[in-house]
């Protein structure tokens, strides 16, 4: 290696061997050439390198980027899942619940409300393919709108459903006397010849004749508002307020089993059949009033209960915890 060894030369002026020394200009020139060469080379290398090979850090960043993008993709698919759940809920809401509860379906104009006018995020412009991010953000915005609407809708539906169930539980819907007990309808609703005056008079309820002491059951859930005895009119009489404008009256009772203010369930025994008051024989006078007007009680019970089913229903009124036992099974 002769680069770093000291070099000497024969100086013809002094005739001495002297060290080879560069003067200032030469040094500067040498330095400049080296530096320029070095820098231009470095810059060229850098450019060439960057163009053709990713730097290690770039690879790391790219990996991060890929991970982030896959996160977006998975969020997108999760959102897709939420969307399909929402559609399912919406179907159930509109086609099922609202149909069953006779509510108007929510118009799609309201359901799709607030989906226009997407917020353009300036920052997102510096992202390659910003569509993905925008997609997710748009989706979330739409979904949160839809979820809000769905939630409000379902809360309403829930209230309606509870009310309708209460209504079904309270509305007079059964025969006040079990089909197991021998009864016969002696006088129906409407005009008839009065047994006392023998003149045509309106009959506000129905008369069911039977044995004295036969259990009389409440025909719907409600509160006893009258439990009185009188020698006239309906004699011993129980009045039950079922809410929703419904009141039922059980007249000519032998015994009264309930007190005023007592809550009764459908099927619960309110008294026993008798012959008290203005009556010509043992029978129950059963009357249904809706919003203050009497209506035909025949429309408020459906004779499709067998005596066993009736027993189950009546016992459930007393033991509400008892499970729904299939009647046919309990027979066997």
């Amino acid at each position: 290696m002769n680069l770093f060894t000291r070099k000497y030369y024969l100086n013809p002026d002094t005739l001495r061997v002297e060290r080879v020394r560069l003067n200032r200009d030469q040094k500067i020139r040498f330095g400049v050439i080296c530096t320029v060469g070095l820098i231009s080379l470095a810059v060229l290398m850098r450019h060439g390198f960057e163009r053709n090979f990713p730097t290690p850090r770039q690879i790391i960043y790219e990996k991060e980027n890929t991970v982030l993008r896959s996160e977006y993709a998975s969020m997108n698919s999760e959102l897709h899942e939420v969307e399909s759940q929402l559609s399912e809920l919406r179907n159930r809401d509109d086609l099922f619940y609202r149909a069953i509860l006779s509510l108007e379906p929510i118009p799609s104009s309201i359901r799709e409300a607030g989906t226009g006018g997407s917020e353009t995020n300036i920052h997102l412009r510096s992202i390659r393919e910003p569509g993905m991010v925008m997609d997710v953000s748009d989706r979330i915005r739409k979904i949160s709108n839809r979820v809000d609407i769905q939630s409000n809708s379902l809360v309403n539906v829930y209230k309606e459903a509870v009310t309708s169930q209460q209504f079904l539980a309270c509305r007079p819907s059964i025969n006040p006397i079990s089909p197991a007990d021998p009864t016969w309808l002696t006088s129906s609703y409407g005009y008839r010849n009065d047994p006392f005056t023998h003149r045509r008079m309106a009959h506000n309820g129905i008369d069911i004749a039977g044995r004295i002491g036969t259990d009389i059951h409440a025909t719907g859930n409600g509160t006893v508002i009258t439990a009185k005895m009188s020698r006239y009119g309906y004699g011993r009489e129980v009045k039950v307020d079922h809410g929703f404008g419904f009141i039922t009256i059980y007249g000519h009772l032998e015994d009264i089993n309930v007190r005023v203010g007592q809550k009764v369930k459908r099927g619960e025994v309110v008294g026993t059949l008798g012959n008290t008051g203005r009556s010509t024989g043992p029978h129950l006078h059963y009357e249904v009033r809706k919003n203050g007007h009497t209506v035909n009680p025949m429309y408020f019970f459906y004779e499709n209960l067998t005596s066993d089913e009736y027993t189950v229903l009546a016992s459930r009124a007393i033991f509400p915890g008892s499970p729904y036992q299939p009647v046919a099974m309990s027979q066997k």
Partner: protein
Amino acid sequence: MASSKFKFNPEDLNYDKLDDSLGARIWRIVIYVAAIVVIAVLLNVIYSLFFDTPRERQIRRENELLLEQYESLSERKQMVDTVMQEVQRIDKDIYRVIFDTEPVESRVDSDVGHTYKNLLQTSDEKIVAVTASRLDSMIGQDNKTAPFYDVLMVKGANRSEMLPAIPAIQPIENPDMTLIASGYGYRIHPIYKISKLHTGIDFSAPVGTPIYATGDGVVETATRSARGLGNRIVIDHGFGYKTLYACMDELNVRSGRTVKRGDLIGTVGDTGLSVAPHLHYEVHLNGEPVNPINYFFLELSPKDYDRLILISMMSGQSFD
């Protein structure tokens, strides 16, 4: 510096002449260049340790933005999920209040293929052989089955008349199986809240939804009533089959009318002992109610059929 250069040799304390040939000069230049290249590479490495390349900077910025956006989005998503869970809870509550049972999951994972896999895997010849041997044994059996076989033969003979007559479609349009609410069997009565035999299928649908005859036949009765089954139509299909459509709103046919499968006979209503607008549909065979689910075979794929069975079984409460 045209004169030659010397090198001090410490061993013999003499000045040796340096090799001044072309090769040596080139060699020297190469070494200089190599040194410069090495330094340039080092510089590059050092530079990249402290500064990002533009590309790196771009990706890093992008990553930051993506992360920032992702965080805000996932926060919002979390909120959506929370509300969604709440909504689904309410939904279940409603379902429970109305039907006394859990809702059917729409994505039924029932592996329909499984049911038919065995059949599909078996070769046709094998199936034919097994069927033939079964038939043979059936015919060969005692007198008990012989009449049955005769009936089959007779039925086969007027099959062309029987096929259009047997109820074989759903009485209302129900493409997504979203309508059916309660099937055949013991169901909790919506009013009495006790278990009662439900002898038909209830399709919940809004009032006014068209109802179609499910097979060819003659309208036996078309009755209006405010009680029991409400406005109802009975169609006699012959061959022992009758269908009943109850709780209807409008009746479009009168008794005695001949109807074809798919004819509009009326609309869904809420009449009679009904707690919600629905169609109560019954199929009677020889005077006995049978499960109508077995009489939708014309329009259902095996998958839909499985789903229908599941839905009709799951609902705990009927509508009338």
